[in-house]
């Protein structure tokens, strides 16, 4: 909650310090379109695009501003000539789709692989995964995205160059061609995230599982002659996965940040793409709306993790 408050305060300060010429352009635009006076146009611009009235005292502006944000009134985007809510409504599903698909893929594969490496100990996979993780750590996510874009989309033409689906070929709805088309468009963005994150999840799971291996109850389970698969999944995996779940929220935050560049590379119409557009065109209304949503999303993810935690970790339930 404090974070949301701090974030909106930062936004408020930023919005109050917009370079004058940006507002000037909007005001000029409004005067041209509606034929109102300059002062009136300036007031309209601030109320409409930024959500505060310049005549009121500062604290009142601040309260109005936050009230507007909390009500879900995110303003009006001057560059797209659409309410920010409408843009968000069209962009959010795509980002959620991409992020959830990437996160679950990399998390599940990483956890399984990490568990396997920890259990088998000396395998050839171990050093390979370590080297791979160090290499992907050195590659920023948008560099991965750009490499995939250049080689798989442009050079080989295996994947589409832009968009979330081809509007000419398929009709949105619950039909097979549409779903296939959407997955085809989502493949490269998802792949960039997965390539980028899978090594880290594997190493984390391995580290966590190795420390669990030493526990007495694991030895007891092995000594009791339980099947190997059961020991690995129910005894080691279940305990080892707990610290990783806490990291999911952090990961979502960094993926949200990464989406700005990845979606821009693939011209994928999600939150990140529109955020980059807003940044490039100095569209503060859109910028603040999307930023507010990103923060809210991160906080929500933290809350969900806090709620899930006691379910998967009985030790946290005791308190």
């Amino acid at each position: 909650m404090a974070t949301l408050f701090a974030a909106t305060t930062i936004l408020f300060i930023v919005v109050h310090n917009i370079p004058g010429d940006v507002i000037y352009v909007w005001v000029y635009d409004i005067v041209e379109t509606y034929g109102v006076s300059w002062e009136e146009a300036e007031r309209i611009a601030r109320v409409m695009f930024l959500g505060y009235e310049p005549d009121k005292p500062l604290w009142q502006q601040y309260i109005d501003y936050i009230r507007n944000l909390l009500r879900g009134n995110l303003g009006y985007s001057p560059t797209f000539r659409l309410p920010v809510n409408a843009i968000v409504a069209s962009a959010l599903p795509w980002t959620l789709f991409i992020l959830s698909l990437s996160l679950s893929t990399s998390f599940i594969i990483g956890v399984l692989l990490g568990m396997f490496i920890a259990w088998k100990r000396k395998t050839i996979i171990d050093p390979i995964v370590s080297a791979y993780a160090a290499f992907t750590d050195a590659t920023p996510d948008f560099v991965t995205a750009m490499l995939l874009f250049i080689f798989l989309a442009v050079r080989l033409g295996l994947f589409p160059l832009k968009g979330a689906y081809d509007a000419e070929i398929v009709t949105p709805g619950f039909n097979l061609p549409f779903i296939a088309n959407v997955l085809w468009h989502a493949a490269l963005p998802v792949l960039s995230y997965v390539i980028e994150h899978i090594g880290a999840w594997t190493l984390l799971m391995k580290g966590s599982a190795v420390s669990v291996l030493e526990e007495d109850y694991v030895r007891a389970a092995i000594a009791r002659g339980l099947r190997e698969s059961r020991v690995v999944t129910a005894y080691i995996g279940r305990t080892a996965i707990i610290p990783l779940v806490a990291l999911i929220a952090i990961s979502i935050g960094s993926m949200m940040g990464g989406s700005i560049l990845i979606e821009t590379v693939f011209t994928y119409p999600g939150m990140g793409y529109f955020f980059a557009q807003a940044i490039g065109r100095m569209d503060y209304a859109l910028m603040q709306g999307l930023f507010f949503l990103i923060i809210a999303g991160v906080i929500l993810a933290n809350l969900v993790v806090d709620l899930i935690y006691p379910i998967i970790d009985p030790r946290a339930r005791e308190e």
Partner: protein
Amino acid sequence: MRRMPVEMIKEVITEERKKTLKEALVEFYYSWIRPILKNRRAFIGSLILLMFISMATVGPLIVPLDLTTRWEQRFLPPSWEHPLGTDYAGRDIFQQIVHGSREVLTIAFLAAAYAILIAISIGIVSGYLGGVVDAFLMGITDIFLTIPSFPVMLIIAVTVRVADPFSFAAILAIWMWAGLARSIRAQVRSLREREFIEAAKVLGMSTRHIVFKEILPNIAPYITIYFIRMMKGAITASVGIMFLGVVPLSIVHWGVMMNLAMFQYGAVYVPEGIFYALSPLMAIVLLEYGAICFASGVEEIVNPRLKTYE
């Protein structure tokens, strides 16, 4: 046993013996150079980093930057004359990479330095004083940790309209210090309970002495590792911001080169443009790989139990 007066012990401990240059060099060799030479990862990392550092410092002096447009020479493949080929306007890519490395490293170095300073001050004050100050500072730190840094950096960068590397680095640094401040605080808290700090307190040494002479040297290796990691983070962030074309400080900055290749001159769409599109990418990956190797190698040396990539 003769009892020494407290004043005398204090004198013995606080006395600073002037080291000769040779002694200092020998000590530096045994505590830094030799372990790095012996650790494979740290060695590779330091080689790569040294290469980029010399590229950024003496490189621009040896390789002159020629930005004259020669349309008939556009998108040439690598040759002796142009080691990495030419860009969309027939300019040598290698020259741009060399001159860009200076921009990239300057911003990364400044950002990491600012962030370290903030982190050290907040971490030490918070860990050493404890109580209300600690709770307040850590509350702020948590907020900085939760807010995704990249969008904020972008928003501030466009609002402030950065025009020089110093303020750009400062904007990056504001969103980079929080994690380190937290761990410095934790280390200071555990150090504070140790005997040698207790002893220093009993002897009545000044807080300044305890902080700078007793606590800081103990977390110094740790800070070195973090410094390299932060530089890596700053490179990613600054190149990412430049990639969106927001802070056009210099045309040869790698991020700006990527922006031009991707969005302006379509170098990614033509087969001949591949060298222009890939050169900055490869430079970034190699530089960051060096940083990671160096940081994790030093980490192994300082704390053999902790191995990041193993």
